[in-house]
């Protein structure tokens, strides 16, 4: 089902303006072991329900944002820019 995302910069816009960046997960720190990288690179929770995920507003403000979405109904509960203090999480790359 098609839906809209309330971009914190541009307001409510069609999902087709955005690029989906996958579910949110913490990037391992330098020196992390192989298992941590395996989890980060491959394993997905693939939540059926409320999920925090990355979106890139490619046809708008061109910023990476995070959204909390209900994956059964595609209802976006909220969208926000990641906290400036989270240095290691600037988007999924």
């Amino acid at each position, binding site marked *: 089902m098609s839906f809209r995302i309330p971009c914190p910069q541009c307001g409510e816009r069609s999902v087709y303006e955005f690029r989906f960046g996958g579910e949110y997960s913490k990037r391992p720190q330098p020196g992390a072991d192989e298992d941590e990288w395996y989890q980060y690179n491959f394993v997905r929770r693939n939540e059926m329900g409320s999920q925090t995920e990355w979106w890139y507003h490619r046809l708008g403000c061109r910023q990476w944002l995070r959204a909390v979405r209900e994956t059964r109904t*595609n209802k976006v509960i909220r969208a926000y820019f990641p906290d400036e203090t989270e240095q290691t999480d600037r988007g999924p790359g």
Partner: protein
Amino acid sequence: MRQLFRNDRMWRAHELKGAYDVVIIGAGVHGLATAYYLGRRYGVRKIALLDKGYLGYGASGRNTAILRSNYRTPEGVRFYNASLKLYEELSAELGWNLLFSQCGHLTLGHTDTAVAGLRVRAETNQLLGVDSRIIYPAEIQKLVPHIDCSDRPRYPIMAALYHPPGGIIRHDAVVWGLARACDRMGIEIHPLTEATGIRVARRRAEAVMTNRGAVAAGTVVNATAGWASTICQMAGVSMPIVTHPLQACVTEPLKPFLDAVIVSASLHVYVNQTGRGELVIGSEIDPYQSYSMKGTLPTLEQMASSALELFPQLHNIRVLRQWAGICDMTPDFAPIIGRCEELDNFHVDVGWGTYGFKAAPAAGRYLAEWIATGKVPDIIAAFSPERFRRRRLVGEKAAAAVSH
């Protein structure tokens, strides 16, 4: 008279027993094929197939019923070809007409890069004895007289990968035929029986909880598509899977004019004409992950405009239905089949993305062998769940992303 029909039911209803040798979650075409081959080849009959919906509710009834084996990797080609061979015999084996039409399958290339990719596939296919070759517009036009091979489209057709044994089958018939055969062997099919949890102890999946009570199991198989992650989570097994919707539509019936399956990865569309004359048009997966099975207008527009690039004369045709199914995508576009490292008796047959239907007989046949003998069959060894940890991916994206 009424009694006559009652005796000839395709499958019967059963009380859910307390224990089975094998419990298969998901009674779609994969679960049914696994049960069928377990029963027929290995004499395992104490099997329960559990499904949360009715038979064919999920991917088994939502796919576009295309069969082919012209994949990219040697592992993939060998495996899908085994599946195609099993499909060829399946009607006779089940005593049930599956309406399999091997009308031929064409994957179009509209750019140099696409044609280079098709060439690699043609070479790999030929080395493994699969009938598959590159053909050019003159021959494409002969095979498909109504396709637009001119310079008019933005991306004219440059070449195609022609795969004569590919074609379409009646997907509901496959589900019903397998279900009937399973039922005749005494295998129990339980629709409207949803797995709600899995009891795990001593590295074993001991029992499956359902809305109709708990069932103890010697072996548990997760043969779901779309919900594979949720079932694996019940057993504490993590999976490299994301679920995306995939949409298709069907037009009003037309006089038969298209006797081949047409796929274009560049235009993200595939088209075939059913025996009833309807055109089945499918697209690529939705660009975001979701469990929603509702269609969207942008995708319908994209399917229509791409189909018109290939067949401009269809511009007045009406669409009858549009639907979506959900697909478990893996990082390498190859399936995940086998026993999970975390548990000793929990097998998965998941991650079937957009290519599961055509693979069902082979997946069922070889997973059954694995379960019955405890040995890993060579042909599915490359698709094991541990391959991601070992960095042994089977890169099938070039042949599986859009070309269903």
